[in-house]
């Protein structure tokens, strides 16, 4: 393993080498301080009701814990980023399985977990072909091995849920980890995470301020057209303004391409949110879990990321390539 690889994996002292990283982390801190002040101000003025106040307080408090947990591993190095993404994948799968009942199918559950581990192996190894092959191979493995229990009743549901879970939480979220194979992964990963979360906040705020017409009332009764459009406009603006600094030197750092990136994050983010909401409505639950006070489960918080991660990965990958200058097949040596 050469020095550059070691530094990429464990070189925490390079956390702020890229100037955009400091700005992004500082920006998050500033936004949290401002939001805390705003909520405190609104509470003191008595302009918000008791329940809204409690909800906002809980949300802000959780963000103070969540933000370091999301940013910390990215800053520390690629190794901790891989580990954090693996934990996120497993955590999201667990919540999905317990919500849909798939957790009762131990064989399928074990196969999905193995698939997530195999995907992580491909990510850590920087073995792009295996990473891409993991999804089709995972489908074949889950569908094939599921027959051995000789239980045809419910085969389609079990297998379909397993494949769906692996595609979303193993492969989809896994793309976020693969970014860390790029030498300059820190600004990109932080940028995507921040844009996705801001997109949620923009949708919430625009919806509260201007929302009247419901977007998809059966899936998510609180979402409005104003929220959705406001988020698309503001997220695109954020990406267009901050993007040139984060992606400086890459071909995708210019106007129209950044606009495309912003649109992709805004639309895929909201679709991810709606997809997971549809699942919750279908199953008949309000939240996926009670892991994060004020937010619900991991899947309630990171729902947008599930679709954004692969979409953004392939857009940036198509324009520029990801990890091209890093040594491939670290562990297998290809």
């Amino acid at each position, binding site marked *: 393993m050469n020095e550059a690889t070691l530094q990429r994996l464990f070189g925490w002292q390079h956390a702020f080498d890229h100037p955009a990283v400091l700005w992004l982390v500082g920006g998050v801190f500033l936004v949290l301080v401002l939001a805390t002040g705003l909520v405190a101000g609104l509470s003191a003025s008595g302009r918000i009701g008791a329940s809204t106040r409690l909800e906002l307080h809980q949300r802000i408090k959780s963000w103070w814990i969540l933000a370091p947990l999301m940013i910390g591993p990215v800053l520390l190095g690629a190794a901790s980023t891989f580990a954090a993404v693996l934990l996120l994948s497993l955590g999201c799968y*667990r919540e999905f*399985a*317990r*919500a*849909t*009942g798939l*957790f*009762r*199918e*131990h064989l399928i*559950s*074990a196969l999905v*977990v193995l698939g997530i581990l195999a995907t992580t192996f491909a990510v850590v190894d920087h073995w792009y072909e295996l990473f891409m092959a993991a999804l089709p191979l995972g489908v074949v493995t889950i569908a094939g091995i599921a027959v051995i229990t000789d*239980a045809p*009743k*419910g*085969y389609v*549901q*079990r297998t379909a849920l397993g494949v769906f879970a692996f595609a979303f939480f193993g492969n989809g979220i896994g793309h976020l980890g693969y970014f860390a194979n790029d030498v300059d992964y820190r600004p990109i990963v932080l940028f995507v995470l921040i844009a996705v979360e801001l997109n949620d906040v923009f949708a919430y705020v625009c919806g509260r301020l201007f929302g009247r017409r419901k977007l998809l009332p059966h899936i998510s009764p609180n979402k409005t057209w104003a929220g959705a459009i406001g988020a698309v406009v503001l997220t695109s603006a954020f990406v267009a303004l901050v993007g040139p600094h984060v992606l400086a030197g890459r071909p995708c750092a210019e106007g129209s391409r950044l606009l495309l990136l912003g649109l992709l994050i805004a639309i895929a983010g909201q679709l991810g949110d709606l997809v997971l909401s549809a699942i919750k409505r*279908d*199953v*008949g*639950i309000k*939240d996926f*879990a*009670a892991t994060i006070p004020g937010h619900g489960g991991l899947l309630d918080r990171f729902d947008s990321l599930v679709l954004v991660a692969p979409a953004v990965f392939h857009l940036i990958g198509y324009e520029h390539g990801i990890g091209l200058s890093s040594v491939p097949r670290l562990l297998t040596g290809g």
Partner: protein
Amino acid sequence: MEPWRLRPARDHGMSLEQRMASTRREPGLIEAIGQRIAGSALSCLLRVWHRLQIEGREHLPATPPFILVANHTSHLDALALTTALPWRVRQSTYLLAASDVFFETPTRSLLASVLLNALPMRRQRQVRHAIEDLRTRLVEDAFGLVMFPEGTRSATGAMQAFKPGLGMLVAGTAVPVVPCHLEGAFAAWPRQARLPRPRPVVLRIGAPLRFDNASDDRDGWATVVRTAEAAVLGLTARSRS
């Protein structure tokens, strides 16, 4: 086998601590792996250290729901009963354990839940509510349950009277009750001993009893308890004759 249903875990939305203290807890992959490892090790121990013999295996229901009941003299009892079950059935079988012993501390709760698939049962307070909850689950979720209707381990080795809880669980349901009798477990690991001694243990399994027609009231519960108690005692008599 029952068709697949899209339904969340019974303990959905509970924190880890709440799950451990609840009879609604449903095990997942981690627990299944823990139980497989613990189950293999313990069944090995029972076969080697206690030369466990199992008679009447043919009486065990092929699929849940069912309740295994037995006399209770030792901590080996539950392990011997679960060992008798094939893995497919065992992984959907819970052990009803006293919450004041097995769920006293967070570590014990975690071990009891993950390794033994135990569900907590209070011995005094709120028993009625917990049993009603469990009765609903037993019928709807169709799982196996291992329980000791005496409520606690016998101090002398002699069987004590059964408590009405068993009746409240099954009276008027189609859930079969399988009477079992354990011999030698008291000599192997009595209440006073810290560790089990290498004495032989014999498990006898009797024919399942059904209480579909028993009424779900005090009379019905008493009938269930009397019948089950007699059936377990009957297995003792058979072993002595």
